[in-house]
């Protein structure tokens, strides 16, 4: 299901127009992003947890050229599904 289908499906369920729904969804995501950027964890009950994790810098070697690269540290968003959800799809 792509974004378009998702929006129209959600719009149908909630009874909003597609345009409104898409706007609302992006607001929700915006709020989440903001909180995540502050280093907070977003936990949605029954769905899972979104968390920002720091990956340390590391050295990687290009297997072809044997060139060694220093990969800088980065922040990544990780998602951990709730146990309920995990069990459901097992």
């Amino acid at each position: 299901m792509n974004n378009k289908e998702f929006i129209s499906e959600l719009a149908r369920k909630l009874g909003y127009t597609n345009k409104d729904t898409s706007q609302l969804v992006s607001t929700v995501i915006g709020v989440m992003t903001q909180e995540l950027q502050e280093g907070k964890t977003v936990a949605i009950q029954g769905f899972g947890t979104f968390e920002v994790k720091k990956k340390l810098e590391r050295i990687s070697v290009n297997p072809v050229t044997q060139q060694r690269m220093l990969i800088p540290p980065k922040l990544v968003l990780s998602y951990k599904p709730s146990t309920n959800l995990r069990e459901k799809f097992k």
Partner: protein
Amino acid sequence: MNEKITLQDIVELLCLKHGMTKKNADALVRGMFDLIEEALSTEKYVKIKGLGTFKLTEVDSRESMNVNTGERIEIQGHTKISFTPDTVMKELINKPFSHFETVVLNEGVLLEDTPVVKEEPKQEDTADETPEVMVEQPEVLVEPKAETPEEVPVVEEPVLEVKVDEPETIALDSPDTVAEVVEEEVSTKEPVLEEPVQQQIREEEKVVEEEIKQIPEPVVATPAREHSKTTFRILIGIIIVLLLIILFGCYWMFFRSDKATNSQIPPAPIQEKTIETLIVEPAKVEEDTLQVSKDTLTVQTQLEEQPEVLSEDVVYEITGTITSLTLEPGQTLVRLALKYYGSKNFWPYIVQYNPDVIKDADVVPIGATIKIPKLQPKK
């Protein structure tokens, strides 16, 4: 820092931001996540713009071991939910670190324990320090000789001992450590040592002559040592000293090769290292902002200006203030430099221009008012 935000918090924020009723906002957020869940069960794939992609991936069954009992167990194949953040999301999350770039490492850069490039200045230090420790042996040996002119009868014994020990220790010590030994010793000591010892030697056996051979050479090094002593902390000084060490190392290698074959091994890596540091440092100083210990940082900042000027080919001078601003969360000196001068290498100018605000270039408090200097090429 690690606070938890729940669905309810999102709903509340949404009410504030969008003027929605709590009920509607709640329905929306819940509806969203329920729909993701639902869609996953029917289509195995949900893509949401701005957030990312949820996918169901199959995991093959595999064998594993029970850690407690050592029994073999089979983990059944199952599907799991994987999530890949959207590029937009990824960039937003990584924003504080976005100015870091991947750097190609030159060959021969030795970073066994830590992958941080920053280690190199430290290695130089250790290169200086380790010989010092080793030095102690010869020093102890030398001192009895110094006493010899005063108490002649007693002296003879220690001198004899010295003769026995020294050739061995020299053979063991790497050539550059020997050179280093000389350098580490206080210059005043040397002359005092030399003369009396020589007198003694003439009176005594020939074996001592080996020591004399050793002592004259140190004398050559002492002026350089005296000179670098005052500017020891500055890298240029360190480099000069290291180059001297290398030169001495080579010198000793050629003259001592027959006596100490195994001692030749150390100088080579050290030489490599120092050369590496020369090459690598100017390019990588940005990395320092990350994990620099305070004392090395001050050295680094001083250093930074030189390579940076070289790379830009022009020396700049501060002629005024472009603007002053209050530091916000997420802003760094490097970023400011990039913004105002188009190059990350210019941050030391900002540091230089704000001595009262920026005490430690690593830790600049949020909310500090920073003046951005106006730079003009020096004529």
